[in-house]
């Protein structure tokens, strides 16, 4: 299933990462996953969390610009080549990946990855058809 991911605009300067995280800490919200994309000028903090609506409200109240986008959590065998099979399947189906990052979770010999697809529904249709492990939110949170 699709998961909501929050993105927060950060300026590329010391301390800018800690500030929004402090907002979430104060609101008592725990992170499930965190990833940071950065350029010379700015960064984009990407967060997956269970109470995403509360997190978004808290961040916006503190003046942060927040974007919500759908991502897909997929688990692959935690072994060499575990990711390759799935990537090849997606490539053959013509599914575009905007970006991806590793989820900080390993379980039952499998590793969880987060994917931002151009078309998440099309991606999930392919993954489900091929029985490649799309992870549900109840498994993550």
């Amino acid at each position: 299933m699709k998961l909501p991911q929050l993105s927060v605009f950060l300026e590329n300067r010391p301390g800018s990462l800690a500030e929004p995280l402090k907002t979430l800490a104060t609101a008592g919200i725990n992170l499930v996953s965190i990833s940071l994309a950065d350029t010379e000028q700015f960064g984009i903090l990407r967060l997956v969390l269970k109470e995403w609506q509360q997190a978004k409200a808290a961040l916006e109240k503190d003046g942060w610009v927040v974007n919500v986008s759908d991502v897909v959590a997929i688990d692959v065998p935690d072994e060499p080549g575990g990711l390759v099979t799935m990537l090849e399947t997606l490539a053959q189906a013509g599914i575009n990946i905007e970006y991806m990052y590793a989820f900080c979770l390993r379980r039952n010999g499998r590793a969880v990855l987060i994917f931002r697809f151009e078309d998440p529904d099309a991606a999930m249709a392919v993954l489900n058809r091929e029985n490649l492990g799309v992870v549900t939110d109840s498994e993550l949170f």
Partner: protein
Amino acid sequence: MRARMEADTGIQAFDIYGLSEIIGPGVASECTEHDGLHVFEDHFLPEIIDPESGEPLPDGEEGELVLTTLSKKAMPMIRYRTRDITAILREPCGCGRTIRRIRRIGRRSDDMFIIRGVNVYPSQVEAALLNVEGTLPHYQIILSREQGLDQMSVEVEVTPEVFSDKVRALEEVRTRLAQAIEHILGIRVGLRLVGPHAIPRSEGKAKRVIDKRNES
């Protein structure tokens, strides 16, 4: 700049004032006293007004220069607002001329600045930002000097409307904003996306232009 040019070339510089809407250069000019510019009052009627209220101000007070042409035939101008801030000096001049002078123009009522010989109004930058974003974001123009060259950069606060989780999409926004400004001004500008409320506001209104060209 002026002193350096005079020293380097041995040529005396004379300020000449004019507007293309009136006749171009030649509305007023410095004499050898270099103490204000004599207005050619037989052809132009100068007045100073309060740029906020539009009320005329007495000689000697600083305000916006308003010009009426007295001899122009094809396209006369009546009380044309120049946006230039100055004062009318009526004291006799050391050169002996009795026509009134205006003080050398230091600034304009609408924050215009000159960069690399190009007159720039913040309203032009606003038009470009508005064009790309649909609404006007908070922004600030920063003028600096690098290796003897004037540089202009614009800081624009990121809004929820343009923010994306994708780096490429944000880079595109940045490029589109820079290109829109460059298209209007015809000069290269740097563009930096900054966080919300990164630009300081005073009395609810951000200071539009920070000129650092005379620093360092």
